[in-house]
């Protein structure tokens, strides 16, 4: 992949896929801008038996987010992840969504996460310092994936030797490698991966019931809603979503952020000069790059959007990436504005399903960027070897970087 490789593919609405690797390296921007302008609600046959509708306008996306009685959150992805049950709290609808989500609020609140800042910083430093003297590193594998994984799996008390397999299984679920070439085989592989994860967390639950700790599974196993304990399935399903939601999004949020830092050295220098700009930088990266291009809904009540009839059972992709570039909401949407205010981007979702780990993600990214720039204020990427992998979260999956080593 080259930095200059930005030729725009012609993609008709009927073949649009959020997993299309022709849209990598920023090529998605022109495509979604054109689709939003010409057909703000369109239908694609790229996935699912009946295909799916795509909402592109910010206003329509907000409406869908704020009306769960019309738009069910299950299945949350297009194509569906291949699970045998709804994907825990992220695919729960009202009225059961709120009490389920509330269970972990004390552990995910801004205050609770802020109390972890030094710990996050220590983990970041422990990953950064060994690579700095080398003057080069593949940042995604060596740092960005390990960092949130360590934070998330600490919450579960997962042993070190089990982490690689978990990463592999969640990668299959989130990226469905080979989807365009052989969807039936991918369905089989993802279902098998999901089953292995179900078994893993079921075994963990059994173990925690015998020996409770202070980990999330132990906490959930003792939680009650309206006097009723959670079922085993509810606990396992909760774990099934927290890990990928916390790991994938932060890892690839960071890889997008560092690619942006390499592309925009003037922005990088501004951050080096003033770390207080980092939070604003993170929000703009999330808007500008939309690491998750969008999530899905299922229509529960017949209605119309922009003159298009949506029927109960129809699948809908909420294309955040398009809403984040909608000029009706953002001035100069295709410009990277470090100090953009307001910046009501959609990348954490909106409404009841707004990202539960938002504070964890923001703090993780802030700490990592800060600690990195303290040690490596200037770096370059080997653009020919930068890789991007489409998925429910779009990954900048390889980021080979080099920098000068002083002394």
């Amino acid at each position, binding site marked *: 992949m080259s930095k200059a490789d930005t030729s725009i593919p012609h993609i008709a609405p009927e073949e649009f896929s959020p997993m299309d690797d022709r849209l990598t390296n920023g090529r998605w921007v022109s495509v979604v801008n054109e689709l939003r302008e010409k057909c703000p609600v369109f239908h694609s046959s790229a996935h699912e038996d009946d295909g799916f509708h795509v909402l592109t306008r910010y206003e329509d996306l907000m409406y869908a987010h704020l009306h769960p*009685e019309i738009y069910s959150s*299950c299945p949350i992805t297009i194509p569906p992840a291949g699970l*045998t049950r709804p994907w825990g709290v992220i695919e729960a609808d009202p009225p059961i969504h709120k009490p389920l989500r509330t269970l972990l609020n004390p552990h995910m609140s801004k205050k609770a996460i802020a109390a972890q800042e030094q710990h996050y910083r220590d983990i970041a430093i422990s990953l950064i310092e060994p690579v700095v003297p080398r003057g080069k590193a593949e940042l995604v594998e060596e740092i960005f994936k390990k960092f949130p994984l360590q934070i998330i799996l600490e919450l579960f008390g997962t042993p070190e030797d089990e982490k690689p397999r978990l990463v592999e299984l969640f990668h299959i679920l989130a990226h469905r490698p080979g989807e365009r070439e052989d969807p039936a085989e991918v369905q089989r592989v993802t*279902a*098998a991966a999901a089953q292995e994860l179900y078994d893993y967390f079921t075994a963990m639950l059994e173990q925690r019931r015998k020996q409770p700790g202070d980990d999330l599974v132990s906490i959930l196993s003792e939680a009650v809603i309206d006097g009723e304990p959670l079922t085993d399935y509810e606990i396992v399903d909760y774990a099934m979503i927290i890990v990928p939601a916390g790991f994938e999004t932060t890892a690839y949020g960071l890889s997008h952020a560092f690619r942006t830092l390499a592309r925009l050295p003037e922005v990088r220098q501004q951050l080096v000069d003033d770390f207080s700009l980092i939070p604003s930088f993170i929000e703009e990266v999330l808007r500008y790059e939309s690491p998750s291009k969008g999530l899905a809904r299922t229509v529960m*009540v017949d209605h119309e959007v922009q003159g298009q009839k949506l029927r109960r059972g*129809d699948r809908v992709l909420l294309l955040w990436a398009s809403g984040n570039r909608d000029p009706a909401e953002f001035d100069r949407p295709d410009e990277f504005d470090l100090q953009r205010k307001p910046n009501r981007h959609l990348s954490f979702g909106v409404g009841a399903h707004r990202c539960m780990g938002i504070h964890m993600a923001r703090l993780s990214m802030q700490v990592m960027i800060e600690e990195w720039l303290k040690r490596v204020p200037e770096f370059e990427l080997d653009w020919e070897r930068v890789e991007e992998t489409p998925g429910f979260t779009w990954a900048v999956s390889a980021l080979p970087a080099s920098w000068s080593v002083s002394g």
Partner: protein
Amino acid sequence: MHGLYVDLIAPCAADGHFLQREYHVHLRRMARIRDVQGVVVNGPAGEASVLDYTMRMDILKAARSAAPAGFPLLAAVPADTNSITDEASAALELGATGIVVLGSGTEQEDSKALQLALDAAPDATLVAWNMPYAVAASLSGVTAVVSGTAGQTAGNGELAVMLTDQNFDLRAISSGQAAGAVLASANISEALWGRVFRYAADEPGRAEEIYSDRLQGLQQALLALDGPNSDDYRQVVAAIKHCLFTMTQNSSAATFPPLVEIGDTARETLSNALLGGRLLPGMA
């Protein structure tokens, strides 16, 4: 009234208490399937015969809170002449859009109960279930559900899904253990499940061709759960296929597909796939 109406099972804990959140998830799953027109609450698959009035109303409330606006909920009530007027009225007040009268097996009692239900709910959909077809057919405005033979409507515990039919108002399209297979398949591949049944209704002449294509995906999904050598899942898929194929081959006949037998292990596997095996005794 037409289309597929799913008789919802009621998930229960080992001690028998109703698992409301799981029921919510289950109902929403059905409501997301475009080809499912509505659901039956407290029907035979929900083991209505072992539920008391309070529990039936609790389940109906749970159903109403989970169902999207405008989604039909048919509340099943026993054909008890002493209570049917009050229970049918209460069900409508709680948001039911129709009443399913579960036959008692006594023709006179059923006939009277149906009339009382009709008086209590003159504007609602009214369905006669598990009673002689002649009883239901004798009353204007009553939809009869039939299964087994033309002369007898569906029996307790038999129905999972109803489908409109050209000869009868509604018809059961799976029964006994195969009902579990059908419902379990919905858990695993809901869109596919709805599609298969729509084809069953619309294009019976192409049944085998369509099923072999459509069920292939379902089979893969099932096998992936337990490895490619799982005879249990092969049996399940075969049961679903047989049930559907037989039905469409005999779409105008007075007899209905034979009960499809699946083994104990397969039933247990299905039970586990279907709401975690927390079915009331007799359903798994």
